């Protein structure tokens, strides 16, 4: 059975304090790994798609990396507006989401 596990469940950072979110996955035949940001009461907002181990993508203060078993979302010098729940999803056949990491950045 395809599984996606995200850790930590919640993370509280001071503004400017860099950190990483983890997404561990077990799937049979990964087609793609997605990172999304979700604000309360809204739909997931696409951030990155990673397709193969060793791939990295960056967008502003965010950088996503991928290995054969996990992906990391690195947040460098976060700002309060980065506060959201970050979702990881994998696509073997159907897209399977993790439960997310709720990030709170304190000014």
């Amino acid at each position, binding site marked *: 059975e395809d599984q996606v596990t995200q850790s930590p469940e919640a993370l509280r950072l001071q503004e400017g304090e860099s950190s990483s979110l983890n997404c561990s996955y077990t799937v049979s035949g990964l*087609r*793609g790994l*997605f990172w*999304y940001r979700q604000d309360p*009461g*809204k*739909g*997931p*907002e*696409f951030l990155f*798609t990673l*397709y193969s181990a060793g791939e990295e993508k960056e967008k502003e203060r965010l950088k996503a990396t991928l290995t054969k078993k996990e992906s990391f979302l690195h947040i460098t010098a976060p700002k309060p507006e980065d506060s959201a729940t970050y*979702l990881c*999803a994998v*696509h073997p*056949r*159907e*897209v*399977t*989401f*993790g*439960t*997310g990491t709720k990030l709170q950045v304190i000014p």
Partner: protein
Amino acid sequence: EPEVTQTPSHQVTQMGQEVILRCVPISNHLYFYWYRQILGQKVEFLVSFYNNEISEKSEIFDDQFSVERPDGSNFTLKIRSTKLEDSAMYFCASSEALPSGSFTDTQYFGPGTRLTVL
């Protein structure tokens, strides 16, 4: 910037009633999806739709559910005889790439419809 839209934003219905949730995908996208998110839980895949037929569906998507593309712009999810446990946020998504058998491209989500079944 093109975006997926959904109506209504909030739907309240009585148990046993039928509801239709509507979505307008991004115009040049060919692949459409429905997901649901029960409050406090993870996003769950319901169904994907391509070329006027269901491509994949999850165990959640039973005979109570159906999808339709009634015209060139709308994509609908019908829930027959709603149950209390159907209360959730329902998200529509669309993607541009063809399901070539290797992967499905990035999915862009709408803002969701909050369904409340009383």
